[in-house]
């Protein structure tokens, strides 16, 4: 299977007054064309930084990105800012967690949806408006004509996220980055938005990177999952494989710590003791070792390399669950 996006040995460091903060550390990942890949981890694990760095959205003198990012045959890391920007909209697009701050509060919805159409596809003002209305209908916004003329504050959170999705898919991107797209929404609205994304992906043959902290969202909406911890990908496998046969102790601990509607009530949750390691002083060994119930001496001294099972299941652990294959 060809990969649409491939990230090779990418690291992202931020210069801070406390020293260099290593947000993403030697990430390798392939996003296969037409697939949905979940990126899951806790706050501070580097999932958002990884996506933004891959798109080249992190800039400034305090950001140091190393490694290679290849998208659809273009080596993004060797291109200028302007050249990368040409790919936004028709190549890659992104939707963010908080649709209210992502939308411009003083411009009407119609103008914001039409903007990409006019710039990328060179549409006339009136054609772009007609297409914008169609796009709003495509993301199932009722009364699209009226919404075109509204301002973001007049819409509910769910409607705003639908507008963001309409903007993102306006120029038929090949890859959609969705960064916690439903975290700010109620469960019933979340279910609607996730269903919409599933349908749009199928209709438009679009690949998706879905960033989330919610393993439930990952389970029902992705083909592959990457689990991140302390800036690294610690496990990567097809979604069904990962849930059925997880190899990385962190993934297991994360899954055990979440309350579930399909478990009996009143059951005590397992707890992951301790906290994420300080990103300015990464430990020598495995980042999860101090919190891991399977940790041995080697884990605190030697940094584990990525290992792959014969079936392609990737993990970063000296003593994986189920032993070495």
């Amino acid at each position: 299977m060809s990969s649409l996006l491939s990230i090779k040995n990418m690291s992202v460091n931020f210069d801070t007054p406390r020293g260099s903060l290593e947000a993403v550390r030697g990430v390798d990942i392939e996003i296969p064309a037409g697939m949905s890949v979940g990126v899951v981890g806790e706050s501070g694990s580097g999932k958002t930084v990884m996506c933004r760095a891959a798109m080249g959205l992190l800039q400034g003198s305090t950001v140091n990105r190393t490694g290679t990012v290849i998208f659809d045959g273009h080596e993004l890391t060797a291109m200028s800012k302007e050249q990368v920007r040409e790919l936004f909209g028709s190549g890659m697009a992104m939707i963010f967690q908080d649709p209210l701050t992502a939308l411009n509060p003083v411009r009407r919805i119609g103008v914001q949806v039409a903007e990409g159409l006019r710039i990328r596809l060179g549409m006339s003002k009136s054609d772009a408006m007609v297409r914008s209305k169609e796009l709003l209908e495509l993301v199932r916004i009722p009364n699209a004509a009226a919404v075109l003329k509204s301002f973001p504050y007049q819409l509910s959170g769910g409607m705003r996220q639908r507008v963001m999705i309409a903007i993102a898919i306006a120029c038929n991107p090949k890859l959609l980055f969705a960064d916690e797209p439903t975290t700010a929404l109620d469960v019933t609205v979340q279910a609607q938005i996730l269903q919409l994304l599933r349908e749009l992906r199928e209709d438009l043959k679009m690949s998706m990177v879905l960033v989330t902290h919610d393993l439930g969202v990952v389970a029902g909406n992705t083909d592959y999952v990457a689990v991140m911890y302390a800036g690294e990908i610690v496990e990567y496998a097809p979604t069904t494989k990962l849930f059925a046969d997880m190899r990385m102790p962190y993934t297991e601990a994360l899954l055990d710590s979440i309350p579930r509607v399909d478990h009996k009530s009143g059951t005590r949750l397992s707890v992951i003791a301790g906290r994420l390691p300080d990103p300015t002083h990464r430990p020598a060994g495995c980042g999860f070792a101090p919190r891991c119930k399977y940790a041995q001496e080697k884990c605190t001294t030697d940094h584990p390399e990525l290992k792959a099972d014969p079936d392609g299941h990737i993990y970063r652990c000296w003593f994986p669950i189920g032993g070495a294959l």
Partner: protein
Amino acid sequence: MAGSGTAHMRNTVDSVLTVRDLTVEFRVAKDKIVKAVSGLSFDVVRGETLAIVGESGCGKTTLARAILQLPPPNSGEVVFDGTDLTLLPKENLRSARTSMQMIFQDPISSLNPRMTVHQLLDEPLEIWDRGTRAERDERINKLLFSVGLEPDLVLNRRSYEFSGGQCQRISIARALALDPRMLICDEPVSALDVSIQAQILNLLLSMKETFGLTMLFISHDLAVVKAISTRVMVMYLGKICEVAPPDVLYSQPAHHYTRALLNSVPIPDPTKQIRTELLQGEPPSPMNPPSGCRFRTRCAGASALCSEQEPQLREVSSGQFVACHHPIV
């Protein structure tokens, strides 16, 4: 009588809190009134954890605040420990509140950043004159230990030096300082990461046992509610839809809204994905709620009766009460 019925009220001597016909309305413009909570009744008995669950805007936070008279409700009774708080003069209300403490959603902004942990915990004890300086210090140390913090390491630090999970532990210690009988938790774990969320939920469960607390637990997260509650009340647009013990509610919901809510919770297991008909649209405005049953506009099972008559709570199985004309059997 307005409201969603009273069949689920137990009226026992064991009731710590009894709310009757509580209504909270806010005037937002000359003739626009937000009906946040409309004629709600329920009771909480000793040792129980009643969870109130519902989407944003259903009135759950307003309800919690109205119980504490922050602000007082427009009408209705809030009987706590035998006294109706709505009738109490200001000074008596202040002392009544000592036995009813609240924990808020955002642990960092609910602690004063200018105060040290010692000052934060000492403040309630000093105001209510609980013991001498030495006795208070001992009490503070005990409280910090019980919430899993090392007093020597935290006493002289301020809230911004702590993580969200640690701040929530401090908030819990502060809420327990005056030995309350009841704890009202408003989305106490929503702002926390999953691994920290589990720590705080377990802490609340053990605090409840150690201090013999009765809890009101407000959350939008059905999975969290299932883990911690002994009774669950589902709210929609300021009314009660269903009240039941968690295991019953989750395995055989009787209200169409409860079922829709449960079906939209993502389950972290790719082999257990349910793809049923989703709830369409969003809740109507609380300024102009639908007649009859407030959920009827989004309900698959609605009939003409639902727009004409408001359903009253009735028992459909042991301990399970539902306000619906056509409950799911």
